[in-house]
């Protein structure tokens, strides 16, 4: 223990570094006050280094978020100053059938794409993890879907899903008649979900694969010795151990799905009718086509609230499951 006098520095700070102590040891006794200021200066420097990031977040992330919430209580047409209207924007939204339809579309899209991305991503990862020759190459090829520009993806799929497109031609020999994938209100949104899964499932496959490779092999060896089959091993070992990863994938893919814009915008323009219009599209149209910024802000707050509730429920569900498992 260093002798630093009756008011030991280590005990004051509780976590003095060796450099600090060595520095202070060299100081004459009368300059202990300066050493305290020195500690504050170190802290200030640390704060100074973090400050730009904090400012960046405040100005570019949380500031606009708070402003959007505030704007949702105003009527604002871009030109005239915002006028406080209380909950009027929310009341109008609830009375608007287009908003209700769009909300249902969005929830359907989030649920469908999240579920399928998770299931397909996990299935692909399990298939790759079996180590079948060529599986790694397949993984690389599948991952390429993530590298394609979204615009190209949308345009290619629009042609593939055309009434006389390749998908229908492939299905024709199986006796499946012409499906108007993007022009029928009952198939348009599922078609967009399929394209979303095609694009994003390989990305989450890599996440699942990384988690699978990190699972301890001895659990499986012990289970095999006990005579557990592949399905039981998957159900009782793989799935519980993967639950943090599944949680991550579900939350992230749901958040990604909630922000979908370009796919329906390019592939269907929100149609036919209102069948594929999702909340981000409605926000864009309301704000920039109809110049109703306050209303658009209210829609974005609703979308934010949905995602907040969804994430909170997910966390609650998974954390409870973790506690039960532990």
């Amino acid at each position: 223990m260093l002798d630093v006098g009756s008011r030991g520095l280590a005990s004051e700070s509780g976590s003095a570094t060796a450099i600090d102590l060595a520095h202070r040891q060299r100081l004459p006794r009368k300059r202990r006050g300066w050493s305290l200021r020195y500690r504050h200066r170190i802290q200030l420097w640390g704060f100074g280094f973090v400050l730009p990031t904090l400012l960046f977040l405040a100005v570019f992330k949380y500031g606009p978020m708070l402003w959007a919430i505030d704007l949702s209580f105003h009527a604002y047409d871009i030109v005239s100053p915002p006028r406080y209207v209380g909950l009027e924007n929310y009341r109008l939204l609830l009375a608007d059938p287009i908003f209700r339809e769009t909300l249902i579309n969005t929830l359907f899209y989030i649920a469908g794409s999240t579920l399928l991305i998770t299931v397909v991503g996990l299935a692909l990862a399990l298939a790759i993890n079996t180590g079948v020759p060529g599986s790694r190459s397949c993984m690389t090829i599948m991952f390429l879907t993530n590298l394609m520009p979204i615009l190209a993806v949308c345009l290619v799929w629009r042609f593939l899903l055309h009434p006389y497109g390749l998908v229908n031609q492939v299905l024709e020999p199986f006796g499946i008649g012409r499906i108007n994938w993007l022009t029928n209100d009952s198939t348009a949104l599922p078609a967009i979900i399929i394209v979303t899964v095609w694009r994003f499932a390989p990305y989450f496959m890599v996440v699942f694969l990384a988690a699978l490779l990190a699972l301890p092999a001895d659990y499986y060896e012990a289970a095999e010795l006990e005579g557990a089959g592949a399905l039981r091993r998957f159900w009782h070992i793989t799935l519980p151990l993967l639950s943090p990863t599944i949680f991550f994938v579900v939350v992230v893919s749901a958040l990604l799905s909630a922000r979908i814009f370009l796919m329906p915008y390019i592939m269907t323009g929100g149609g036919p009718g209102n069948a594929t219009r999702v909340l981000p599209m409605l926000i864009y149209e309301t704000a920039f086509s109809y110049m109703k910024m306050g209303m658009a802000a209210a829609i974005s707050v609703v979308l934010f609230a949905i995602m907040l509730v969804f994430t909170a429920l997910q966390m609650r569900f998974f954390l409870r499951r973790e506690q039960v498992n532990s």
Partner: protein
Amino acid sequence: MDSKSDKSGSQNTRREFVRDIGAAGLLVAAATGAPTVFAQGKAPISLSFWTFENPQQRPWLHKRVKQYTDRNPHVKVDFQWFAMGDLSKKVSVGYATGTAPDGFVSQDWVMPVWMSKNLLAPLDVSRLGYANYNAFVDDFAPAFVAGATQGGKVYGYPLWFYAFSNYINTNHFKEAGLDPVKNAPKTWDEFGEVAKRLTRKEGGKFTRQGFKFSMIAPVWTMLQYNPILLMSGGKWFDDAGKCTVNNVAGVKAMTLRASMVRQYGTEDPTDTIATAPLPGMDWLKERCSMFWSHPLPLVAIKSQNEKMAAEGYFKPIQYPGIGSTKGFSTSYGFNLVINAQVSQAKQEALHDLYKFIMSDPLDAWADTQPFPLARKSGWADNPAVKTFPHVDEILGARDRGVYLPRTVVYNELSDAMHRAVQKVLLNNGDIQQTLNEAAAEVDRASAALKKA
């Protein structure tokens, strides 16, 4: 006195001689060097200018802007262009984010939206070369310029102004045993029957559509549906501002709009909307026999179908009438406008730029034919215009045409009608119910706007 006077006269003469030489030098300098000095002395100014994409109109505008900046080196113009359907949305985003262009080309149907929000600067017509307001207004079709003026002020400098025609493939007519002149459909019934005879199918699949509408974007839906509604006796709004697309006449109009699919079976809307090529591409490629289109430039036809352009087996004709109403189409046009939020110096520079752009209407016609200019003076009587193929039909359609509804809820109206047309044609929606929904949507938008 005389000698003195002579002397002084002689001295004055010498002085005058020297003075004259100096003055002449100054005059020469003023006549030659001064403008350059003046131009160089002007403060540099940067302008942003947006327009819509079109293979002829956009390059011509670009050319004129470049010619202007070459002559006025202190002026820089950032020239940008967007798809026709996107332009007004981009400008809206620009206004919302403070990045709107200093000047832009505005479609006439969105002028009320800009003007109602005071987003456009009033134009000084004397700076555009007109003696006064009346001289300006008299130089354009009254109904068109009405959409660019408000309260005795001018907010748009009309650029092009034209209408749709029914473009027919005369070879297809002959193949089907029809005479392109005698059998040119004049009523809706004739139109449906002719389209049906022109249609070709193989195994339930269209190999040629007799007639097809464009479903690419709300703007096309409105341009094509507008005359059907008006010829059916309908109106977009009643006098109280209530949307009336769902009244009896409105239902009749939508029934006629849907009849090409439901009654005559001349088109496949699922193919039309899913392919989304340039509107009219199927007609240019002869996969469709009749198509309602704006004036089609020969170069555009040539770029897609050299044979059709060379042999000229196409013809624009008048729209079919409905009931006792003679056929007419939608007339529309474009204005050069100035952002009200830009500085006075920029506004003045834009006036000069616009005046220069429009100073040579024959050059505009040469580069952008067959798109007629909105102005009356300086071009229409020229032989180059008068001898242009089908020019009478193009100008006649323009003069007979009706305007898109000029309303501050135009975007809401066009989106609602686009959705309604899709529901009726793609999902076999009930016409009355679908139109009720569309009208309610527009009324909600109008009510919200009034309240705001």
